[in-house]
Each structure stands twice: as structure tokens, then as C-alpha cells.
């Protein structure tokens, strides 16, 4: 299986990058935008913890390791699941307003997971994944 190639080294590489991103966002943004820095730190650090705990659980149960596509969608999903409600709440509290760029990003993420949902349902209805 080609997937297994990514099992150890790829996940380590991704978590390494995420941990670095967490540290850098905290360090660089602390001065100029403290809340943004802390938010970046929580998101990237949280992603590291989730990925590693999932991988440990997968090892323990002998399940198939996640593929790069799944890791990508998991990361974007976890980030979006925290960032967008945060933005909506900030909008409600009057400390954020939507710009064309942020609306574009939000719609892009929405389309991405709409495709994922449709493909999942399609595979499920067909009975067997291709």
C-alpha cells in the first residue's frame, strides 16, 4: 500500500510544521496583534494534539493510518470549526465585520465540505467505496 509510506514520516513532518507555526504565530504576533497570536497558537497547537492523539488511537486499535488527503481535510475542518464561529461571534460583538476576502474564504471552505458531504453520501448510497 502506497499510503503507508506517509504513515510515520508524513505525520511527523506535518505535526512538526504545525508546532513551528504555533510557536511562530505566538512569537511574531504577540507584539502587534496579541489576540491573533494567541488564536493561532491555540489552533495550531490544538491541531498537533488532535493529530497525535488520533494517530495513537489508530495505532492502539490497529486501524488504517490516515492518508494525506484525510489529514488535510481534518486540519482545514478543525481550523474552520473554530475560526468561523469565532468570526461570527466577533461579528455579533461588533469587533469584526465581513470583507469580500473573508467572505470568499468562508464560501470556499463551505464549498469544500459540501463536496466532501456529497461524495460521502454518494459512496454510502452506492454501498461500496470505489
Amino acid at each position: 500500500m502506497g499510503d503507508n509510506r506517509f504513515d510515520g514520516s508524513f505525520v511527523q513532518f506535518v505535526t512538526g510544521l504545525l508546532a513551528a507555526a504555533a510557536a511562530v504565530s505566538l512569537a511574531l504576533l504577540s507584539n502587534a496583534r496579541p489576540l491573533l497570536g494567541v488564536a493561532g497558537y491555540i489552533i495550531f497547537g490544538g491541531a498537533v494534539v488532535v493529530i497525535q492523539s488520533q494517530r495513537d488511537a489508530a495505532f492502539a486499535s490497529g486501524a488504517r493510518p490516515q492518508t494525506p488527503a484525510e489529514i488535510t481535510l481534518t486540519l482545514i475542518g478543525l481550523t474552520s470549526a473554530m475560526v468561523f464561529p469565532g468570526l461570527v461571534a466577533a461579528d455579533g460583538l461588533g469587533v469584526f465585520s465581513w470583507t469580500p476576502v473573508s467572505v470568499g474564504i468562508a464560501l470556499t471552505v463551505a464549498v469544500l465540505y459540501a463536496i466532501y458531504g456529497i461524495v460521502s453520501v454518494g459512496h454510502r448510497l452506492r454501498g461500496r467505496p470505489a
Partner: protein
Amino acid sequence: MSHLLVAPTRVRRLIATAAILGGLALALFTILKLPLVGVGVYVVAVGSAALVQPLADGTAFDERDEEIAHAAAFWTLRVFGLASAITFPALTVAWGVGAFE
């Protein structure tokens, strides 16, 4: 406690419904200028999705679900990648000829 358990199929449907409802509520209430209501519905939906999974009568997500998730992730990124590879250069061209801002 067995009366509290839910069939795995039902658990999967509840989680899917909660995820869809949460996302839609977030988007719709933002458009309706009621963002805090949207966040409230979203938090309730995601919270109930997380709470219902341990109530499954057996494994909620088995190997078949894993295979579906695997294939769905693969095809999602393939479709999204192909669509992006066509859309974004086209937008750049349209912007270049002044047809898109």
C-alpha cells in the same frame, strides 16, 4: 443503561444532521444579521454531535465508514483541485482583460 443506547446507524445520521444544521445555521443567521444566534445553534449542534457518539450501541464508525471517509477525502481534494486549477487561471485571465474585479 441499555435503554440509553442508540443504534449505530442512527448515531451516524444524528451526527451528520447536526453537522449540516450547525454549518447552515452559522451561515444563515450571519446573513440574517443575527450572528450570536447562529453561534449558539452551532455550539448546540456540535456539542450534541460530540455527546451522542459515546451512546452508540456498538461501534459508531467501523471499517466501512473509514473506507468511505478515505475515498471521500481523496475525491474531494481531486474535484476541488481540478476545479481550482480551471477557475483561478480563468479569473486571472478575466481580470487581465478587465472583465472581473
